[in-house]
């Protein structure tokens, strides 16, 4: 019986320590509420990506210079799934920072925006936003986000020198694209199409970037897909899988496609080792880091489909979007809204373009890209100006199957046929829809 007393006291100390820790935590949470010398102080939570933090800090510095009565502190959170959890938990418990950066599209929908975020529908600047962007940060009841960054496209980046040497034209249909690729293969100096399955996510572009062509044939495909009515095994959506198989069978990929990485792929196009590479145009920042001399050599064209008339870009909206949680109230809400308004000014766009290489056009009216952007980005502007763009599927439907990248690697490596791959992906999508608890699955 002797050992009992010491054990109980250990438990008591442990409990005491816990209580103390809780009290301290409570204190610090309460402490941050008080303003400094009458000025309003805000917190701004962003992901810890180097580029995100640099951009956010540059914007905050410029804003504070204009508004001396408001001070904003930039906090960071992890990226990826860990970051998702931080954002969701802090929103659910009402402990969110006064402003926070998060994704648009299906990830934003998962935050329950109607319950947790401040509706910005009546702000004047919403009218200046690109219509597609508004879609990606809206529910039926409101508009919730302001962009911090540019849109991008899932497209083919290509080496303009190779095209000029061989006298090739930018293709507007898939058949022209294959004809160009065969010509490059015959010339024998470069790999016609670059694939980089060392980074599996890069394998999805032929499928995801083809979505403009899917919508061209069936404008309500995304809705049908969400309602379990449209499938990847059927036309027109299967085309992306078929393209992968066709290009593999025609032996158009680089020799090391199975092990090359994303960084390899970008520099292959830059150096002329590879001619064409389907990828997201955020590759511009990779290009400017590793091969800045090729800024004018690497251009962009949309992934072509069956019909030249509907040729256009599949577009991803800025993934960096700034939101205000409902827990921000009073003076803080006013200050936060002021910051959001600042984000929509051309001045803010210039800062964003300066602090990080642009990956595509801005989605705010009046914001222009600087003149010295890489050709890869300026090539996209005409499609935006002429309205020849469509949103990527992930902004139009909440369902994206998690195994797509493995399936597209298997199809692109000749392990699985296009039809089997599409059928596998349909099953994967079904699983995701059931997990999300959607009706009709």
């Amino acid at each position, binding site marked *: 019986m002797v050992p009992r007393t010491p054990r109980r006291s250990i438990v008591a100390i442990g409990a005491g320590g816990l209580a103390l820790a809780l009290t301290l935590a409570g204190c610090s949470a309460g402490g941050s509420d008080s303003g400094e010398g009458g000025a309003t102080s805000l917190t701004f939570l962003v992901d810890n990506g180097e580029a995100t933090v640099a951009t956010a800090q540059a914007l905050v510095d410029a804003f504070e210079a204009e508004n001396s009565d408001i001070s904003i502190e930039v906090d960071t959170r992890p990226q990826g799934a860990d970051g998702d959890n931080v954002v969701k938990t802090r929103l659910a418990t009402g402990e969110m920072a006064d402003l926070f950066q998060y994704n648009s599209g299906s990830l934003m929908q998962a935050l329950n925006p109607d319950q947790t975020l401040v509706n910005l529908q009546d702000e004047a600047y919403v009218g200046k936003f690109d219509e597609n962007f508004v879609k990606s940060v809206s529910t039926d009841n409101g508009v919730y986000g302001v962009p911090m960054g540019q849109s991008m496209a899932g497209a083919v980046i290509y080496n303009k020198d190779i095209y000029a040497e061989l006298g090739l034209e930018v293709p507007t249909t898939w058949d022209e694209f294959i004809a160009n690729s065969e010509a490059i293969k015959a010339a024998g100096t470069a790999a016609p199409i670059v694939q980089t399955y060392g980074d599996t996510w890069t394998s999805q572009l032929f499928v995801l970037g083809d979505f403009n062509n899917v919508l061209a044939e069936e404008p309500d495909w995304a809705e049908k897909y969400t309602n379990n009515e449209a499938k990847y095994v059927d036309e027109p959506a299967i085309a992306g899988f078929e393209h992968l198989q066709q290009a593999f069978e025609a032996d158009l990929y680089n020799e090391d496609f*199975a092990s090359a990485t994303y960084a390899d792929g970008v520099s292959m196009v830059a150096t002329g080792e590879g001619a064409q590479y389907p990828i997201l145009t955020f590759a511009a920042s990779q290009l400017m880091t590793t091969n800045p001399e090729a800024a004018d050599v690497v251009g962009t064209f949309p992934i072509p489909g069956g019909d030249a008339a509907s040729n256009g870009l599949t577009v991803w909206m800025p993934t960096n979007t700034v939101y205000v949680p409902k827990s921000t109230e009073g003076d803080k809400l006013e200050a936060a809204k002021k910051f959001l308004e600042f984000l929509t000014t051309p001045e803010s766009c210039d800062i964003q373009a300066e602090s990080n290489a642009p990956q595509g056009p801005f989605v705010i009216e009046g914001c222009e890209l600087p003149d010295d952007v890489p050709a890869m980005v300026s090539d996209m502007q005409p499609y935006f100006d002429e309205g020849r763009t469509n949103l990527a599927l992930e902004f139009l439907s909440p369902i994206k199957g998690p*195994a797509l990248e493995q399936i597209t*690697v*298997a199809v692109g*490596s000749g*392990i699985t046929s296009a039809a089997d791959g599409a059928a596998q992906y349909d099953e994967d999508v079904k*699983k995701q829809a059931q997990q999300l*608890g959607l009706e009709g699955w």
Partner: protein
Amino acid sequence: MTTATAPGRTSTSSGGPTPPQPARRGRMKSPYPTWFFIPAGVFYVVLFLVPTVASFYFSLTRWTLFDVEFIGFDNFVRFFQEPQLVTGFVNTFIYAFVTSGSKVVLGLLLGVFLSSQIVARGFLRATIFFPVLVSTIGVGILFEVLMDPFGGPINEALAAIGIEGPAWLTDPSLALLSVALVDVWKGVGLATLIYIAGMVAIPQEYFEAAKVDGASAWKNFRHITLPLLRPATVTVVLLSLIGGLRSFDLIWAMTGGGPGFTSDVLASVIYKQYQAGFFGLSTAGNVVLFVVVAAIIFPLSWWLNRKGDDQ
């Protein structure tokens, strides 16, 4: 070295369902009062029993960490419809049997070699055990670089002697075996250690008697060393088979189950479901993995130990 025999022996004797001695010991009056067991019991219940029971429950639900919806056996039905699952099952068995078999054979040979009278024996023994101590992920990333088909040192070396090396990790038919090869390299040290310990424990009298009878070296090995190493072999087989069946880290670090799904094993299929947020589904997968491992290991260990008792 003798300390290593202890875990080897205990794991072989406790593996069987009804070994005679532990059963008899269990019926004896315990020398400790009941409260003595409470701390261990609390740990056991909180850390092992509760999660196990909970995982059986969650495997029957659609679970988002916040909401739980009971859906019966749907997860199991869906799990068995996974396109990767059939490949995963087959690969798991190939991987487990290839690595386990290779470790037994190589471990035995190396064990004989390293328990003989050779120069720098202690150093050589330590060297073969080093890979066991290194982080599996580190080994995986290292070999991913070494096995790169373009400019990787292994294929460069092969090219220097005129052999065109295969695409180790990117050839769909080779990827799994390449990973198994690395697994054997990394794990054979442990098998060797167990064998050395087993050999040291064989009394010298047998060899002296055999010498008197004029037995050859091969007969010594075949009729003395090999039979008396049975407990060590049982341990190596069980440990490496269990390890192989649930292996994950090395495969994930080296191929991520790819290219496509060609080197997926049960554990990596399950992990991908977790990653995708299908928590109920992946819990169901873990229950399946548990049942599969148990269904193989229990009969095997019973069979191996029974044959050991016969002698």
